């Protein structure tokens, strides 16, 4: 099996820029495919975390209602949740809600509590999946953009932008925002993926009023509304917005949306302050008309599985999506036999900041680089950065997602040159070849004394 990825690293598509919530299964109508996969996916995360060790916590989700009118929608969400099979959802009154989430505004009248909801570091999840896959025989080709495909002798022949070839009997189209282009490339179904942009704002660790659970408002029509999210690593995320249209590369953030997000978020959690913003980003949900997932055997092209329209809750549903794709492949005639020597687990990564000083000695005895801090805000050591680089994450963003170096309050002001030097040392790349997220995003443009 081969995984073809156009970016220089996995997770650089939609999967890196989202709210990082493992949804609890009450937001979508029981008639939708995504409602079913959301529930199934949610249940898989404890097992996956045990195997893969990514940051994930079931902190629970609360929906906060501010009027009797909104409580009617909460009733509806509750019934939907129960019908979907969401675990332990309950309608809660004002006092219980405030006890569950003391950061909430005193103006709440009641709401919903879904204890099975959780938070995750999405890129760490994806990196762990890729690592486990590679350890079990999946070939990973990054920087490999599929541009053409034709079928010959019962196989698909795919060509990359750089002219490489890859042949396979079956193909799964899970190209996110570009699933429409990839489908067309295979002469399969015609559809259009419309990006729906979501801007998010991150507040520093230790900022005022971080909630202990994910806080949702009562949802609007096209999105779940602006949320206040405690992240696994201790920052607070506010967002996302939901703006349709635009192009598939438009990840701009705007001051208007900053204002809007803060207005909504501070209605729910009054203590948050704009002064604590350390960064912002935008992600694009790949949506199809009707707003559901499309996961099926192509009816127009042979031996192709379509996985399109994977917008929210795609992260949550991903384990269930995989199961469904597996079933489709088998129903299409691909014979799949479980490997006898399959080893899902991956080695745990050590992080200096997770150890008390007296525990560090052991780690340091093994590698002194655990005692050399590279990123001051997140307390990331040289050993962790080197591990990321050796695992193939050689861009500044890849290292950032793997280790958190550069994600803290100074946003790389301090560690950028240190990381650049480590990449140069480990890979032999000259500094001017090192990029933020791939070719075109070089960090420095030359040396003093270079002649034009």
């Amino acid at each position: 099996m081969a995984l073809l990825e156009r970016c220089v690293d996995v997770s650089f598509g939609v999967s890196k820029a989202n709210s990082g919530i493992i949804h609890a299964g009450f937001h979508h109508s029981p008639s939708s495919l995504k409602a079913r996969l959301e529930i199934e996916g949610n249940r898989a995360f404890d097992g996956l975390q045990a195997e893969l060790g990514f940051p994930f916590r079931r902190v629970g989700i609360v929906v906060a209602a501010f009027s009797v009118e909104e409580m009617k929608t909460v009733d509806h969400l509750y019934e939907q949740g129960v019908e979907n099979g969401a675990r332990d959802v309950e309608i809660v009154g004002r006092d219980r809600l405030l006890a569950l989430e003391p950061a909430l505004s005193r103006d709440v009248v009641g709401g919903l509590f879904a204890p099975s909801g959780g938070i995750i570091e999405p890129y760490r999840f994806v990196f762990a999946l890729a690592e486990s896959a590679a350890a079990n025989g999946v070939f990973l080709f990054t920087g490999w953009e599929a541009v053409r495909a034709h079928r010959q002798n019962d196989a698909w022949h795919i060509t990359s932008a750089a002219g490489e070839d890859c042949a396979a009997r079956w193909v799964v189209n899970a190209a996110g925002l570009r699933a429409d282009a990839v489908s067309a490339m295979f002469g399969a179904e015609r559809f259009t993926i419309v990006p729906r942009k979501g801007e998010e704002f991150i507040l520093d660790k230790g900022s005022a009023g971080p909630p202990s659970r994910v806080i949702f408002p009562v949802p609007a029509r096209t999105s779940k509304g602006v949320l206040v999210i405690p992240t696994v690593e201790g920052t607070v995320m506010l967002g996302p917005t939901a703006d349709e249209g635009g192009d598939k590369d438009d990840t701009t953030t705007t001051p208007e949306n900053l204002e809007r997000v803060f207005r909504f978020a501070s209605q729910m959690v009054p203590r948050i302050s704009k002064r604590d913003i350390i960064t912002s980003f935008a992600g694009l949900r790949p949506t199809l008309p009707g707003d559901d997932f499309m996961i099926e055997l192509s009816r127009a092209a042979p031996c192709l599985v379509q996985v399109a329209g994977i917008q929210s809750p795609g992260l949550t549903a991903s384990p269930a999506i995989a199961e469904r794709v597996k079933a489709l492949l088998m129903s299409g005639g691909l014979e799949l036999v479980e490997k006898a020597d399959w080893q899902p687990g991956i080695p745990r990564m050590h992080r200096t900041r997770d150890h008390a000083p007296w525990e560090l000695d052991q780690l340091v005895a093994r590698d002194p680089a655990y005692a050399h801090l590279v990123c001051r805000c997140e307390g990331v050591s040289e050993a962790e950065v080197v591990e990321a680089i050796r695992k193939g994450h050689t861009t500044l963003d890849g290292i950032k997602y793997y280790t958190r170096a550069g994600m803290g309050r100074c946003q790389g002001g301090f560690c950028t040159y240190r990381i650049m030097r480590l990449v140069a040392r480990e890979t032999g790349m000259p500094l001017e070849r090192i990029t933020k997220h791939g070719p075109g995003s070089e960090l420095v443009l030359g040396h003093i004394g270079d002649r034009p």
Partner: protein
Amino acid sequence: MIRRTIDAVVVGGGSAGLAAALRLREAGATVAMVEREPFLGGILLQCIHSGFGLQEFGEDLTGPEYAERFIRPALNAGIEMYLDATVTEIGEDATGRSVTALSRAVGVVRFSARAVVLAMGCRERNRGNVAIAGTRPAGVLTAGLAQRLVNIEGCVPGKNVVIVGSGDIGLILARRLTLVGCTVRAVVEIQSYPSGSVRNIAQCLNDYSIPLHLGHVVTRIEGRDRVEAVRVAPLQDGRPLTGREFRIPCDTVLLSVGLIPENELSRAAGVPINEGTAGPWVDADMMTGARGIFACGNVLHVHDLVDFVTEEARRCADRAAAYLKGDPREEMIPVKAGANVRSIVPNACAPGRRNVLYLRSLVVKNDALLELSAGGEKLRTKRLAHVQPSEMIRFGLEAGAIQNINSGTALEVALR
């Protein structure tokens, strides 16, 4: 884990830490210095321009030259040096303070110290802190990082540069980048006046015909992989006038939008922080609200002049030495920022000694009057030719000047 018992630990080996450690040694204390870079000198090492030391040495030195005057003596003073070592925690133990540091060379070290001097300097405000909209491509960096890349790593961060912020750091960088062959397209300043010195505006911008847009903001950064342009608009009533927005093509945006004292370590140690300076609250002994923990230099409040940092660090060390000797502590008078004063350091004065106050103005004003009062009674005034928020005001108060203030009354400092 290595354990060391010592009189004082100095956290940070920049100009503040160096001056403090030397002075503590002169006073006979045993001193350990922890510096997270492999070299001593702090931010001075990347400031290769001149203009340092006019007050301290009566000479015009570069940053590294100024640092060198302290590094050499410090290396020969019997200070226990831990370089490439980061302090991760300051706590309490039976003898006073415990300080934990990590380094590749020695692993984990824990000091038991009776006094700690905080001299961690400051960090730069970044894009997130000033919320500039747009994409997030490569080529957006802080001025200090760019200065380091050019002056220490020998790299050119970009070819066509826009600098946001007209403080001295931004201005000096504009000239430096021009000299290494970059084109500085513009300096964009949100205020209606430049925050850097008149001399730097002339010598760093005008001499190289670099345009300065006062009262303008960057409204958006464009470019997917690398910066392609910024959009800039004039401000009116605090809002950008989108109708008059213009686009400057560039590949690099450098942010010189202010410094923040680096106090995460202090906060975690329970040191109370002063809103106005973002540094610790300190009394006339430069002692913070946490007993035995002192602070000086940029970690306390952002300085424009290294000479003042050195002076402040010495005073801090003298008081820390007195504390180590067990000298009785004088009753102090609280100091309050009055009208038009943004912040003031220290936050308490010792009536029996000479005091030096550093303050920052909230307003831009010619011919201002600095006024000291207590309980409504005017004690002293001083004429100042010009004040502005970006220039620190230093004011010496001779011993005995505030002897007669009733206890419980604060000394108020105002600008009129």
